[in-house]
């Protein structure tokens, strides 16, 4: 999960390998806030797969690539 200067830089780095998913840095920030917000909560409890999938879905990260195992 890497940060690039632009999509052109991603493609050059991939050098013909298939792309994974490219998302905006703003979307990553939204995802991080939703995913990690409670990580230091003293009463933290594990997220279920369904809870994590709901975060991805809510942020529009849908489709087979974003389907958790």
């Amino acid at each position, binding site marked *: *999960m*890497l*940060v*690039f*200067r*632009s*999509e052109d*830089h*991603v493609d*050059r*780095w991939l050098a013909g390998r298939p*792309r*994974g*998913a*490219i*998302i*905006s*840095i*703003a*979307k*990553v*920030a*939204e*995802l*991080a*806030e939703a*995913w*990690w*917000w409670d*990580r*230091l909560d*003293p*009463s*933290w*409890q*594990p997220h279920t797969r369904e809870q994590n999938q709901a975060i*991805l879905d809510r942020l529009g990260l849908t489709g*087979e*690539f*974003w*389907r*958790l*195992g």
Partner: protein
Amino acid sequence: MTPEDVATRNATYRRFVELGRAPTADEVAFATGEGSEAVRDAWRRLHDAHALVLDDGGRILMANPFSAVETPFKVEADGRTWYGNCGWDAFGIGAALHTDSTIGTTCPDCTEPIELEVRDYRPTDPNAVFHVLVPARDWWSDIGFT
């Protein structure tokens, strides 16, 4: 994950932030009153449950989003320097600490530095992009690679 394991996990994270680095099993044991061996056993179960990641020696390697070792994702937040395990985790450090942050990394293609200011959980410069190579179903198959 038992309630006792979750309590050990929460104590481990708390000590990580207090120390500004990964705690040892002894340091967590001192905080919780457990024995060090009990902490190490709990860490192993937490590792298997993907709640943290141990290195081959049984030490904390990742307490996601925090990395125990230096990585290409340096984060300044809350008056300290931290390291994220990946670009997503780098944003996660400010989110977990509930504070602004500055992320420093380099473009893997051209090696130019990229500095991202994060204010109120949003980057001030939206030009960079994020590439996820591994599909979500395989993230934990090799978390180091992911």
